[in-house]
């Protein structure tokens, strides 16, 4: 892995970072709701649990 880093404190960069963070929080909320309520996910988790128990 090659890594390049940069650092900034510009107000525009901060506004951008806040916007990304806000979007991430919304996605995390949607993920938790999907996990609880989406039957496709629930079924997949049950299959994985059984698969793990069998191993």
């Amino acid at each position, binding site marked *: *892995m*090659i*890594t*390049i*880093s*940069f*650092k*900034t*404190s*510009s*107000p*525009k*960069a*901060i*506004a*951008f*970072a*806040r*916007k*990304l*963070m806000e979007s*991430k*929080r919304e*996605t*995390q909320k949607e*993920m*938790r709701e*999907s*996990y609880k309520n*989406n039957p*496709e*996910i629930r079924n*997949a*988790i049950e*299959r*994985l*649990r059984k*698969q*793990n128990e069998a*191993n």
Partner: protein
Amino acid sequence: MDKYDYIYVGGENNSFYFITDNRVVYEVKFKDSSYLFDGRLEFPVIAFEFILEIEENPDSVSPPLDNKIPYTVAAIFRDFFAKNDEQVIIYICDSSDSRQAIRRRKFNQWVEFFKGNEFLKIDAEIVESSKITYYNSLILKTNHPNRQTIIDVFISLADEQEK
């Protein structure tokens, strides 16, 4: 090295799940974030935001250190890149609880499993104050045909937001 079995739930969710020995259920989601590059380039960029989330934790305390998790996450990353090696991944360290520096270290630990020069990571450190710092990263294949242009856009994205 040992890793957990995982499953992929496709469609809108675009998520992988794995369950640890401590019965903690993790979700790894790749959320379509191509919109970040819309209108900035003459070619489409397929971008996904990587999100790792604990969905179920029966013990209700922070899960203990688990050496299988980094290998599992790295395997999921590879699987996802195998679908299309021209896509790019964006990672935003969650800063809602002020533990973003710890998350950055963990994320760097996971991606360290990609030895060699196959992948390229661009780290952005955005400092709001002495107490608030945001860490964002972009990962793409080193041999991506539009590598330099995408990196330039990622670096300039923040400064262009208010234009």
